[in-house]
């Protein structure tokens, strides 16, 4: 087993353990709240430490590249851009319908979280969802960093 596989296995095992513990707790349980807050804090802290000086783009350049991509799509449309638009449509459909259901507060119009609540009220449902949620968080906190090459690393003798 190499280092990468070991890291992946560790994340899966930790997430499964987290899911097994959190799955037993009701949404009212203060210990469950504490557990979720701790998971969020550790994940964000991990991203901040691991990602220091390793982001691929500066935030302003990222925004600029997004703007350039939008402009270039409207001047010469391509399949990739159309795919992005379809993703955007799905997120808009989700947000608008969820907001509509939330504002009406009617039994006939359940929100998505209410429907998910039908799954998380059972131990295995909550266990599975919390495990997937934590693995997703780890990916978002550690994925897509540029690898530090020997050139990037500051030399101790340079001062």
């Amino acid at each position, binding site marked *: 087993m190499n280092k990468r596989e070991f890291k992946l296995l560790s994340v899966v095992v930790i997430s499964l353990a987290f899911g097994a513990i959190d799955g037993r707790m009701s949404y009212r349980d203060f210990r*469950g709240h504490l557990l979720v807050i701790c998971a969020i804090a550790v994940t964000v802290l991990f991203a901040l430490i691991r*990602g220091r000086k390793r*982001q691929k783009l500066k935030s302003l350049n990222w925004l600029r590249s997004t703007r350039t991509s939008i402009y270039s799509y409207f001047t010469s449309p391509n399949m990739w851009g*159309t795919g992005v638009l379809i993703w955007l449509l799905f997120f808009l459909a989700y947000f608008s*319908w969820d907001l509509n*259901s939330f504002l009406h507060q009617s039994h006939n119009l*359940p929100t998505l*979280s*209410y429907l998910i609540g039908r799954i998380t009220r059972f131990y295995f449902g909550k266990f599975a969802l919390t495990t997937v949620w934590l693995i997703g*968080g780890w990916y978002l906190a550690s994925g897509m960093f540029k690898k530090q090459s020997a050139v990037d690393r500051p030399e101790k003798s340079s001062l």
Partner: protein
Amino acid sequence: MIVGLVIGDVIWSVIGSLFAIWLLITFIQINDKRVPNFINVLQYFLHSWLGRIVILSAWAEIGWHLFCQKP
């Protein structure tokens, strides 16, 4: 009509089914990557601190809402 199924359930089923089909289509095209899949969408946000903060905030909010607030 299935007993107990309300109009909101039907709309969510339609959105969910279309989403699942689109997810499948985008993941199937392994070598011929012409449209972005779900991972590509996530990776787009991970290129800068601003995007990473946005997506991590959304992730944290989803976790808090689903596991700590009344569903």
